[in-house]
C-alpha cells in the first residue's frame, strides 16, 4: 500500500533505519569482516542516529495546520531491499547489497524530501541531509568494494 501520510513516512523511515542498523550490526559481527568491524558498527550507529533525527524533525515541526494528509505518494517497494543473505555470499556481494541498501534509502529520503517541501521545510531539510549522508556512505562502500573485489570471491 502506498505511503500517503507523514506518519506513514516516519514509520517507514524508522523501519528502513532499523533494518539498516540490524544489517550492519550483523556484518560487524561476521568473522569475514573482522577487519571492517568498526566500519560497519559505525554504519549501524549512523542508522540509529538517522532514525532519531527523522523522529525529532517530525515531532518538533508537525503542527495541526500543515499539509500532512495529502502531500505524499510513495511506493514502499521502490525503497525496500531484501537483506536476507545466504551463508555462502562473499564479501564483494555483501558490500554490493549494502550499496543497494544505501541507494534505496537515499532515494527514499530524496523523494520524501521533495514531496514534503511545500510547508514542512524542517522535515524536508532533514530528509535531504540524511540523503546526503546516504550518498557519502555509498561512496565509502564503493571504495571498500574496490578494495575487496580483487582478492575475494563475488
Amino acid at each position, binding site marked *: 500500500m502506498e505511503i*500517503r*501520510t*507523514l506518519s506513514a513516512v516516519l514509520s517507514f523511515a524508522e523501519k528502513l533505519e532499523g533494518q539498516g542498523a540490524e544489517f550492519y550490526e550483523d556484518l560487524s559481527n561476521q568473522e569475514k569482516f573482522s577487519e571492517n568491524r568498526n566500519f560497519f558498527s559505525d554504519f549501524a550507529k549512523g542508522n540509529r542516529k538517522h532514525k532519531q533525527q527523522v523522529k525529532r524533525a517530525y515531532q518538533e515541526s508537525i*503542527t*495541526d*495546520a*500543515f499539509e500532512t*494528509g495529502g502531500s505524499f505518494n510513495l511506493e514502499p517497494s521502490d525503497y525496500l531491499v531484501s537483506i536476507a543473505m545466504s551463508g555462502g555470499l562473499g564479501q564483494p556481494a555483501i558490500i554490493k547489497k549494502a550499496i543497494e541498501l544505501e541507494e534505496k534509502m537515499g532515494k527514499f529520503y530524496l523523494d520524501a524530501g521533495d514531496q514534503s517541501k*511545500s510547508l514542512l521545510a524542517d522535515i524536508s531539510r532533514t530528509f535531504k541531509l540524511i540523503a546526503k549522508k546516504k550518498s557519502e556512505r555509498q561512496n565509502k562502500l564503493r571504495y571498500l568494494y574496490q578494495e575487496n573485489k580483487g582478492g575475494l570471491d563475488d
Partner: protein
Amino acid sequence: MAVLEEPLKEVMKIKNYVGGEWIGSKGKVTDVKNPALCKTIAKVPLSTRDEVNAAVEAAGDAFPEWRRTPPITRARCLFRLKELLEGHFEEISRIQTMEHGKTIDESRGETRRGIEMVEVATGIPSLMMGYNLEDIATGIDEYLVHQPLGVFGIIPAFNFPFMIPLWFAPFATATGNCVVIKPSPRDPISQVKLAELVEEAGFPPGVWNVVHGGAEAASALLEHQDIKGIAFVGSTRVGKEVYKKCGETGKRAIVQASAKNFLLVMPDADPRRSLPALLSSFYGNAGQRCLAGSNLVIVGEDDAFYKRFVDGFVDASSKLRVGYGLDESIQMGPMQSVDGKERVTKFIERGMEEGAKLRLDGRKPKISGDYPPSCFLNPTVFEDVAPDMEIAKEEIFGPVANVMRAKNLDDAIEKVNRSRYGNAASIFTSSGKYAREFKYRVQAGNVGINIGVAAPMAFFPFGGMKDSFFGVLHGQGRDVIRFFTESKILIQRWF
C-alpha cells in the same frame, strides 16, 4: 497498514481534579465514545454546581500564595510540564485520536501546538514585565505593573480537546492566576492526562483544576462571582450567551466562535502546490475546525482554468482515504459524533434543495477497514454554490467544500466580506499585488497567503472578527498576557 496500539485498554472512570485531589462526582455519568469504533472508552461525570463551586473555591484559596510565587518559579513548573508533555507526546496524541477521531498526524500536530503554548508561557518573566518613565513631571516617576486577577474559567470546544485549554491555561497560571477548566464532555480524556502531568510537574494544589460536565457546569462557572474572566471556544450561538453573561457578571471574556472561511484561488495560483493545502484546509480534522476552508472561490472568467482546477480538486478529494485515525494510512478520520454527522448530512441535503450541484457525495462513506459507519463521512464537494445559499453562509463544521466563482478579485473580496463571520480567509496566488490587496481589505482575523490553514503560532494572538469573535483581547500571544493581568499604575514622588 497496521493500526497503532491504543493507549487506553479499558473503560476509564473520569474524576475531577480539584485542589490537587482526584475527586469523584455525584453528577450523572455519560459515555465518551471512540467515534471510529463506536465503542465506549470512558465514563465522564456531569459535575454539579456545588462541585464547580468547590473547584472555584480551591482555586481561590490557592491564588494568594501562587501570585506571590516569583514568576521564574512559576515558569519552572511550566518547564517541567513541557518536559513531561514531550515524554508523553505519543500517548497524548493517540488518546486524542481515540477520543476525537482525528488522524494520528493531526493529533500529533495538536499535541505539538499545545506544547508550544507551554513553551511560550515559560517566558513569563519577560512577557509580564511592565514599563516605567522617570520624571513624568519634575521629580515624579510613573510605573506600570501587570498583576494577576484571581481565578479564570476555561470552557473549550470538542474539536481540539488537548490544545484549546492550552491556548489559555499556561498563560493564566504563568501570570499568577489559577484556573478551572471544564473540558468538553465528548472528549475529556486528554485533559485528564494533562492534569496528571500538571500534578507531576509540581503545580501547587488548586492552581490548575479540572471539572468535567456539560451546560450546568459551564453556567456555574459563568455565574460564579469569584471568577474574574472566561475563555470560551465554541459556536457563535452559545458564544453570544457567554459574552452576555460575562458582561452581566463583570467578567473579562475571550469568546472564539463559529466561522465560515473563504479560500480564493486566483488564475495565477500554482495548482500543484495549492492542492495539498486546500485538501488539508477543507478536510483536516474532518472539517471540524474554526480555521477550516468552507467556501472555495475560483476567481476569473477563464472557464478552462476553472474546470481544470475544480476537476483536480474533486478528484483529489475523492481519493482521500477515510478510516480509523490510528491507522497511519488514513487521511481523514470520522466526525466526532453521530450528531455531528447528522448535522452535516442535513446541510448536504439542504445544499441540494437550494440547487447547488453535488459533485462529490460523502454521505455513503467508503471506509478503509472494517469500522461501523455511524460517524463517518467522505469528502463532499458542491459546485455552483451561490453566496446567499445556507450552505455558503452557515458553518457546516464538516468535510464539505462549496465551490463558487468570482469575476475578479474585487468580486471575490466582496463575497468574503459579506459573510457574518470573519475568522479566517486565504488567497492562493503568485501575484504580490493580489496578495497585498487581499490581506489589506479582507475582513478576517487570520489571513493566509498560499496557506490553507492560517493558524497563528503561540506567540501571536489567535485572530477573529465579526461574529467569529467577541471580546477585545485574543487568546495566545501578547494579547493573552494582557487578558490575564490587570495593568496597575503607580505614580510616586518622594519629599
